[in-house]
């Protein structure tokens, strides 16, 4: 690492250790790093938004490409700012209504297709006498039992209660698998910071 890189990485290492200090107890170093990242994150996003989004989607189309029809959604977007005014707040509802209406209209058939149709289609698979066929049968049974568990219009007693029990067991296996993978995921974040600190201190003292 060059001297400049050592200094920058030194800053990163210092801020990393500030955050880790929270594990012992809350302290001013942790608070400093926490507040700094909030300001830096917002400042970063503001300028990124200006250069890549506001410029590309509002200024560039209207002033360089001559697409004057962008003026209407621009006005509607500015109407959103009236939310802070008690007198004019009703204007923001028009823009929000358009936004919500389009979003729900587009989403409705897509949710039906992706969350319901494709999932049901993939559940109804041919069964045969093989390991694959046995797994497919198990899959169908587990899915039906899981859906039965969430059906609260009928009391979970007798055979229905038995299926519901299989459903909750299936859910617990699913949550257990999620937990196992979550542990891997969370630890990976810690490992990356440890590797960073190791490489920094080797560069600092090793060279």
């Amino acid at each position, binding site marked *: 690492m060059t001297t400049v890189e050592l200094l920058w990485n030194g800053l990163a290492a210092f801020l990393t250790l500030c955050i880790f200090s929270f594990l012992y107890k809350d302290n001013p170093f942790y608070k400093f790093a926490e507040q700094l990242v909030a*300001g830096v994150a917002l400042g970063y996003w503001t300028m990124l938004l200006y250069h890549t989004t506001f410029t590309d989607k509002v200024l560039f189309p209207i002033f360089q490409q001559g697409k004057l029809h962008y003026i209407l959604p621009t006005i509607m977007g500015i109407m959103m700012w009236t939310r802070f005014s008690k007198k004019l707040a009703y204007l923001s509802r028009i823009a929000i209504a358009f936004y919500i209406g389009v979003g729900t209209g587009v989403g409705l058939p897509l949710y039906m297709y992706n969350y319901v149709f494709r999932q049901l289609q993939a559940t109804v698979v041919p069964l045969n006498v093989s390991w694959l066929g046995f797994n497919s049968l198990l899959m169908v049974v587990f899915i039906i039992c899981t859906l039965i568990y969430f059906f609260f219009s009928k009391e979970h007693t007798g055979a229905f209660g038995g299926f519901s029990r299989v459903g909750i067991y299936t859910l617990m296996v699913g949550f257990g698998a999620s937990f196992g993978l979550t542990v891997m995921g969370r630890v990976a974040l810690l490992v990356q910071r440890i590797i960073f600190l190791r490489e920094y201190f080797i560069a600092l003292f090793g060279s």
Partner: protein
Amino acid sequence: MRRQIPLYIVLVSGIVFVIQFFIPSHESEFIFEYGQDWVMVIGILALPLGIWSYLRKTCLTAVKKPKERFFAGVSLFGFAIMMLTGLRRESLMAGSLYMDLFNYILVPIQATIFSLLAFYIASAAYRAFRARSVIATLLLGTAFIVMLRLIPLGPISDANQALVAWILSVPNMAAKRGLLIGIGLGAIATCIKIILGIERTYMGRD
């Protein structure tokens, strides 16, 4: 009237875009493209609201709470320095001061904040992960088997990997699919309620 017009807008635009999905024509695609584009522009102009809210809250904290003044000042300083260094579009490229501040302040702090979760999950595993009942044992056992796959156990490793693959692709998949179908039906019901004006929470209060 002030509450009726938005409801009619939601009704008309919602129905138009549901029908649009089923009509493959140039006119239909035209409506879709312009509708989405306009929604994007409206959304882009709504984002400064969040920025304004945060700045207002931080400035008020700096003024009204002497104990928090220094930290509020740190936050505003960070915001100001990023605004100043990011004024030109060229600042977005790797190697600029703006990107160096991003890489050496924002990235390590955010990454480290989330890395604390590893400690919390270890603590939770020690304190709460107990085989109190059949259901808890099932959850615990499955998590145990999945976590074992990163530990080399010689001949047992192959069997463990195969078992984990089966757990993920059969019972886990079935459980998640059951949840997905439920979520999907709930989302569809919510969309219909919004379009028909039954659900109006997005409008806020008068």
